């Protein structure tokens, strides 16, 4: 591909070529969208510094300074609980993320193309089901009269399971549901990465006497590892903003202490309690933690891989 930026004339000064201008123009709508939907809303942070009430123009709203931030840290129990829940559930998701690689490798080893495609399609479908439907399905399976408890009762068990209302297993249960919903979809990128591995490597390994497992371990796994690391780093930096829908639909008083994540806490403070400035302040705090995580991960990535993400 021709270079988009070509150096002409004065050494050290770069001039943008025609291709560069074209590409820039092509990207303009997306940049505009990003500014409109990602940067412009940041203006809303200003509400954290005012005693905002709906309908009253900001110019007529009393300035509150850092009062709402102070309130956040004066009674930090809920905030800390939400932060712990967010981090715990997302770390569990990250811990379980290699399952997608295992699934992709297993799928890659299947000889029957028809069966492989069927499994791939079937496992990808849950990704497109809304969280509301996932909750309904889960309720149909795990409620007192759900499939699981009915089966248990028919098998003579007097013990009923209630993962939807059991606080002790909330984190694990939510991680399990996330895996069920996203496994097939996450595996797609790894299947693509495996497809990109030079086939001659497998041939050479076979000549060297490697069995199937050895070939996977020494060729496939190293082949998909860079992809895994990039996705891992991205998911860590984005972990505080993930899956509000999931935790919202599964929220109930029995598991509230373990499922209330930062986004839910923002929703509760803003919409339920009506304290919009406080909710905005919590949202800003969340962004700060996300940025710290991003730079930390970037630092680690730089140290380990010698490459910076940003």
């Amino acid at each position: 591909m021709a270079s988009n930026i070509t150096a002409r004339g004065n050494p050290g000064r770069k001039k943008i070529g025609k291709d560069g201008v074209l590409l820039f123009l092509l990207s303009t709508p997306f940049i505009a969208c990003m500014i409109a939907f990602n940067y412009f809303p940041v203006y809303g942070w200003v509400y954290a510094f005012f005693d905002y009430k709906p309908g009253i123009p900001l110019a007529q709203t009393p300035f509150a300074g850092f009062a709402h931030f102070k309130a956040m840290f004066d009674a930090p129990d809920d905030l800390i609980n939400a932060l712990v829940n967010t981090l715990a559930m997302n770390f569990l998701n990250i811990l379980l993320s290699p399952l997608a690689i295992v699934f992709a490798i297993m799928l890659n080893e299947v000889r029957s193309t028809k069966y492989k495609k069927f499994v791939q399609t079937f496992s990808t479908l849950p990704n497109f089901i809304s969280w509301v439907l996932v909750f309904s399905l889960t309720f149909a399976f795990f409620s007192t009269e759900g499939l699981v408890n009915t089966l248990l009762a028919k098998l003579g068990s007097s013990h009923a399971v209630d993962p939807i209302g059991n606080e002790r297993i909330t984190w694990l249960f939510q991680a399990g549901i996330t895996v069920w919903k996203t496994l097939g979809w996450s595996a797609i990128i790894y299947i693509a990465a495996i497809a990109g591995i030079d086939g001659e490597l497998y041939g050479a390994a076979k000549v060297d006497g490697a069995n199937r497992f050895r070939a996977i371990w020494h060729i496939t796994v190293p082949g998909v590892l860079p992809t895994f690391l990039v996705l891992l780093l991205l998911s860590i930096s984005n972990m505080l903003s993930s899956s509000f829908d999931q935790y919202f639909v599964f929220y109930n008083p029995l598991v509230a202490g373990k499922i209330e994540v930062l986004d839910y806490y923002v929703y509760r403070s803003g919409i339920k309690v009506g304290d919009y400035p406080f909710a905005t302040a919590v949202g800003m705090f969340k962004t700060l933690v996300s940025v710290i995580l991003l730079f930390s991960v970037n630092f680690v990535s730089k140290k380990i891989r010698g490459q910076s993400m940003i």
Partner: protein
Amino acid sequence: MKKTKASRPMSVAAALCLTAALTACSGGNSNSASPSGSAAPGGSSSPAAGAVKLSISWDQQFNGTPGVQNNPVANEIKAKTGVTMDIISSDPDKIKVMLAGGDLPDIMILPPDQAKVALDGKLVMPLDELLAKAPNISKFQTALDVINARLNNTDGHHYFLPINIAPNAKPFSNYAPWIGWYTRWDYYKEQGYPELKSYDDMIPMLADELKKHPTTDEGKKVYGLSGWTDWGLWSYYVPFVYAEGWTESTKNTTTKPDGSYVYRYAADGPFWRGVEFYNKAFRAGILDKEAFTQKYSDYQGKVKSGQLLTIHMGWELDGANAYFKAKGQDDKGFVAQVVDGATSQAYSLQSIVGLNDPWIVISKNCKDPERAIAFLDYLYSYEGSGLLSNGLKGTQWDIENGKPEFTDATIKARTEDKDFGVKTGVGLYGKLQGLGGSTVDPSTGAYLDYGLTEKYFKTKLNPLDKDYSEHYGGTYPGDAWNKLVEQGKAKSLSPAFIPALPALQSQGDDDLAKIEANIEQILIKETPKAVMAKDDAAFQKEKERILGLVNKAGMPQADAFWKKSFEDGMAKYKELVGDVK
């Protein structure tokens, strides 16, 4: 509608006196009218030039199909006013977001707890100039003044319209009690009509029933008591408020059965009364644990499939009993549980101030305020309110023996067809109905709601209700409760319930509202732990822990505010009406 307010007949006089006094105090209201109501019969509206579509947001989930309304009642309204209703189903969160974002429909049904936000943010339209063109609404200036007083609004404008105003308020008898505890009559009878000294005695009774009938005929599991999560804390305490004689003049002011003030969430308030009851039910093994995880729709599913031994609301009776009726078991089903000294809600009272909750507003974004007020004014006429309540003459009702009555087919359909309201529009738009059902229409001399007639009660009476009523010496369930009151076995609603009291009380500011919203959120989250305490000591420990949390969140501050507000309101009330019990 979740709640309604009622009082014993003796408060009628007090309310009317207060009304007169308030009217006198309101000053500067040129359109004031006599509360006894000289509203002209019939609506004055006629289709204005051209049709217009007005968007109207509900305060809760709309019972019909949201969007442009197309049913006989909606079409008649369109013919009379030229307005096509475009209903937006809603919930408290959605309303808050609409107000915060300024994305407002033409007309809104607002709960009072959002009224201050709407008012302070100037999100609603002052109605004074428009009211000059609304003769029917203008007759109820007093009711508008009461809302202003309740909101401490002194800017001289009126913004909020109350609904279900009864200009010539007089008590009426419901077919059956409205909110409380309803149990299976066939099982109660099977147990030999055990005498219950208090509602707590229901628990061993329900446990026995559950032991004998653990599953439905279809093999589904049966529960003694259940609940739901999406109405906040409602199911914990509201049935007790109505059944045990507590009162709740507004969301914030509750009184004990003896009439003394108590904060709703205080240790000795109605909320903890309910939590204690739920804990006892849990310990007796009759509580459905999904009460803490299921939504109202899931709960409704259990109600309609015969899986519960207790329900909380009178308006669910037809739906719950339809399960038995469909199987030809007309003598089985739910009735209001009679307990020694329980509070009867057979008598109800609507007042000149209308319902406390919700109110109607025209939003600042309304595209055609004049058409909006003309539309609303029609619904505040006898004709308009009657149309919403009863449907069309010759179709849903007709004149029989000189009196308006629902036809037999309508009564049958109302009782048996759960989609009757959606199909016909009858009763579907109650939150736009200006006049209450107990208003006497001067043109007919009958209650505006034809569901309050003797014919309606007699035709509606099924073998189940007949057996129940006759057991207590009445002709229909509401009448049976009246008889129990006459015999001293049940009480009328507490005299501490004063419909107009909210108007005399000072109201909290936004900070207090935030504190109270936070308290509610804490209680929603923590209460199940107390309900599931294994013994008295564990329950007490949990109760104290939760009270510690809400105290830390500012409950003493809220309690102190409302106590003073209640005392000041009562002092003003005494000044206005004299002797108060």
